[in-house]
C-alpha cells in the first residue's frame, strides 16, 4: 500500500492505495466520484478523461500513485460555483450533445482542454481533438456543434438543429 495525497476538485485527499490501483479505480471506488466512466480496457474510448495539473488525461492510463501532489479535476468539479452548468456543459445541453450520457464526462473534459488551448477551434480541429473519445449515441454532430457554440461561434448555419 502506498499513501497518496492530491487535490481533487479543489479538495485535498489522502488515501492508502494499492500500488497498482488505477486512477479510475481511485476516483470511482475510493472517492466515490463515479462520474468518471470506464468504457474500455485499452485506453481507446475516452469516457474516463480527467484533468491532471491542467492536462487532459485518460484516467485509466495512470496509477493513482502517479497523481501524488497533483491537482486533479473531474466532471464533478466542472460546474460553476453556484452549481449551474458551466459554459461547455450548458452548450452540451442546449445543442443536445449527449444522449445516454456515458461518454459525456470524457467529452466535456476533453472539450474543456481543447478550448483552453484553442479558444475558437474549427470543425476539423474539434473532430481531430475528439479522436480519443468515442460516442455511440450522437453521431458526433451535436457534440461538435456544442463545442463550437461553447467557444462563442455561430452555429446557426450548421445543417439541422
Amino acid at each position: 500500500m502506498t499513501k497518496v495525497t492530491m487535490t481533487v476538485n479543489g479538495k485535498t485527499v489522502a488515501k492508502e492505495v494499492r500500488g497498482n490501483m488505477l486512477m479510475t479505480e481511485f476516483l470511482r471506488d475510493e472517492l466515490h466520484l463515479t462520474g468518471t466512466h470506464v468504457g474500455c480496457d485499452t485506453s481507446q474510448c475516452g469516457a474516463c478523461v480527467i484533468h491532471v495539473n491542467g492536462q487532459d488525461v485518460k484516467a485509466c492510463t495512470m496509477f493513482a500513485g502517479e497523481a501524488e501532489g497533483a491537482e486533479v479535476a473531474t466532471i464533478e468539479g466542472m460546474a460553476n460555483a453556484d452549481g449551474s452548468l458551466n459554459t461547455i456543459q450548458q452548450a452540451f445541453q442546449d445543442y443536445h450533445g449527449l444522449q445516454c450520457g456515458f461518454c459525456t464526462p470524457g467529452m466535456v473534459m476533453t472539450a474543456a482542454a481543447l478550448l483552453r488551448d484553442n479558444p475558437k477551434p474549427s470543425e476539423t480541429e474539434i473532430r481531430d481533438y475528439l479522436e480519443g473519445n468515442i460516442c455511440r449515441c450522437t453521431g458526433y454532430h451535436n457534440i461538435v456543434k456544442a463545442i463550437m457554440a461553447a467557444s462563442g461561434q455561430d452555429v446557426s448555419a450548421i445543417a439541422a438543429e
Partner: protein
Amino acid sequence: MPKDHGIGAAPKRREDVRFLTGTGQYTDDINVYGQTYCHFLRSDVAHGKITSIDTSEAEKMPGVVRIFTGKDFEGLGGLPCGWQVTDKHGAPMKEPGHPVLAQGKVRHVGDPIAAVVADSLEEARDAAEAIMVEIEDLPAVVDMKAALESGAAKVHDDLDDNLCYDWQFGSEQEAVDKAFAEAAHVSTLELVNNRLVANPMEPRVAVGEYNRANDESTLYTTSQNPHVIRLLMGAFVLNIPEHKLRVVAPDVGGGFGTKIFHYAEEAFVTWASRQINRPVKWTSTRSEAFMSDAHGRDHVTKIELALDKDNNFTGLRTDTYANMGAYLSTFSSSVPTWLHGTLMAGNYKTPAVQVNVKAVFTNTVPVDAYRGAGRPEATFQLERVVDKAARELGVDPIALRRQNFITEFPYATPVAVEYDTGDYVATMDKLEEMIDRAGFEARRKESESRGKLRGLGINCYIEACGIAPSNLVGQLGARAGLYDAATVRVNATGSISVMVGAHSHGQGHETAFPQVVAEMLGIDESMIDIVHGDSSKIPFGMGTYGSRSLAVCGSAMVRATEKIINKAKKIAAHLLEASEGDIELKDGQFTVAGTDKSVAWGDVTLAAYVPHNYPLEEIEPGLEETAFYDPANFTYPAGAYACEVEVDPETGKVTIERFAAADDFGNVVNPMIVEGQVHGGLAQGIGQAMLENCVYDESGQLLTASYMDYAMPRADDVPFYAVDHSCATPCTHNPLGVKGCGEAGAIGSPPSVVNAVIDALHSGGHKVEHIDMPVSPHRVWQAMQG
C-alpha cells in the same frame, strides 16, 4: 413559429443535468453493502469438450467465497429464446439448450466455464487463473455455408446438423417463378451484411442482491427492458416468482439492441447471491463485452430482382444465410425472419416477393437484434440490387425508384404486412431538394480536378416499428405479447408521476413523455415526472427496442391520461355543480362550457385525495389510472437518404463529404430528440458501411475483441448530417400518429454509402459491381484493380 411547450416543442433535456455533472447512476455506480465480485473464466477456444475442471487450488486462494461451474446449474433452466420460428416444412426451429455456465462443451470463444466469487475483483481474477480446465479441442465451424455441409462439426451434438431452420416466406412459388421467367431483365447480387458489435459505451453490469429476511432477490442490470428480464429469468431460468424478484435498470449507457436480451451473467449473479447470501457484482470489461454481448447482422445473401421491359419491378427473390452463433439469444430467431423477410418489399409495389432464410449455428458469439435488426439487412440488399439494376439498364436510380414506389395506402405487401400510410414521393422530393443534385456534376468535376473520384448514392428505406401487435406476432411465433403499459399517478396537489414500461437509455423519455401529458392536461411539464426502469415501481412493461417507446408505451400513456381526464371531469362537474358532459379541460382549467365557471386542475386533484366535497357514491377517491396498449399494426417510418463520397484512387480511401436524410416519422413530439436519434443511427450505419467488422479466423478465434481491432466511428469519420422530418404522414392507428425514429438512421444509411462508392468508381472508369462492407481502403483499392 415552433411551439415552446407540449407536443412539437424542443425543451432541453432534463436528464442532461445529471449526466453533465457526473451524477447519473449507472449500474456500475451501484455498490451494495457486503458485496462480492464475480469474474467469469471464459473459453479461449471456439469449440471443445470440457474433460475436467479442477477448482481445488483456486478455492484456497485469498478472498475466494465460492467457485461455480456448470454442475451447479444442473436442474435449473437454460436461457430461453423468445421466438419460435416454424420452418418451411412446418417443423419448429431447432432450439438447443443454452446453459448459464457451460456444461460438457464450450461452443464459442467467451463461453463462460466457471465463475469465481470473491471479496474483491482482483482476488476473483487471480483465483480464476488457478482453475485447471482441460478442454479437448474440437473442430470449429465458423463459415455458415461450410457449417451446413455434411460432415461438418456439430455445434450441438444433440442436433442432426447446424441448421436451426430453413424458412420460406412470401408469394406463391408459381407467381415468383412466373415473374422471373417472363422478366425482361434480372439483376442479381451476392452480398454480405457484415457482423457487427453493438458497443454501447457502457459495458454490461449486473449486481445480484438476495435478502434472506423476505426471500427477495434484486437484480440491478444494464437492460433495455427490466420486466422482460424479470419474466424470462424468473420463470424460465431460476424459478423465482415475480413478487420475489425485483429487476432494476437504472441509468443505462446506451443499448442499441444488445441490452434487450437476457444474459447468463444476470441469471448468475442473481442465483449466486442466493447461494452465498451476499450481493454479487459483475462488471464486464470491453474485451469481455466483445465476446459475450450478442452480436448483430451477419447475413450472406443472394438477391434477384426481375423487371419487365418498362422497368417495373415484377419479382424479387432472396436467399439468405443468417448466423445464429452458438446459441439462440432471446430474439435471435425473429431477426432474419419476421424483422427481415416482412420488409423485403421495401417501398416498392413489386407483386411477387419470396424470401428464403437458412439460420445456421456456428462456433461464434450468439447473434441477435442490433439497431434496426433485420431491417437494415433487408434494406441493404434491396437498395443495392435496385441501384445495380438502374446501372445495368442505364436509367436514373432515383427515377427507377420513383417509378416503382407504392403510392396508394393502405398497401398490403406480398410479405404479410400492411403499410398504413406513407408518401415516398414526398421524401424523395425533399431529399433531392436537400442534396442539390443539380450541383453534383460541378462538385464531381472539382473533385476530379484534385485527382479524386466523387460519387452520389441514393437509397430508400422502410421499416416496421412500434413493435408490435401481440396477436399478429403470436401467430408468427412470438412467445410474448408486445403491448406496453403506463400508470399515471396524479398526486393530491396536482403533480404527476408517470410509470412507464419503456426504458430510456439515451432516448430522452424523461423529457419527451411529459410533453405529451402536459399537452393533454394543459399543465406545465415541470409538474410531470417519468418513472422507469424498476419493476417494483412500474406495474409492467415490455421495454424499449424496435422504435416502440412512444408509439406503444406513449400510446398507453395517452390512454391512461385519457382515463384521468374522464375521472377528473366527473370530479370537476361535481365541484362546479354542472353536468359532466359540459365540462371542458383547457390550459389546466375545467370550465363549464359557455360560462365563466371554472375550477383549476389542482383543486380537482386535491378533491380526489381530500374528498370532503366529492361524489363518493359515484366514483372512488384518488386519481391514478393504468392503461395497457396493444398496437393494431406496426408503424412504418420511411424515407430517402443520400450520401456523397470522395474516393482517393491512389489509396482507395473513402471520405463522406455529404449525408442527407429525409424521413417520415409521422408526428414528432420533440424534434431535437428525433434529430439526435437520426444522427446517431446514421453514424452507426456509416460505421457499418465504412469501418466496422467483427472478424473470426477459421479456428473461431475472435480477431476483433477490442477497440484496437474493431473500428468504431469517431468524430473525424463522419460529417455534419442534413436531416429533415417535415414530410409527415401520421400513423393512422395510434393516438399520437407517431411512427418511431430510433432505428431509421442505421437502417437507411449503409446502402447509400456503398451506392456512392460504386458510383464514384464507375465515374473513374472502374466497372465495379459491388464491394462488401466495410468499404475499407484495402477493399476499394482491390476492387479498382479488377
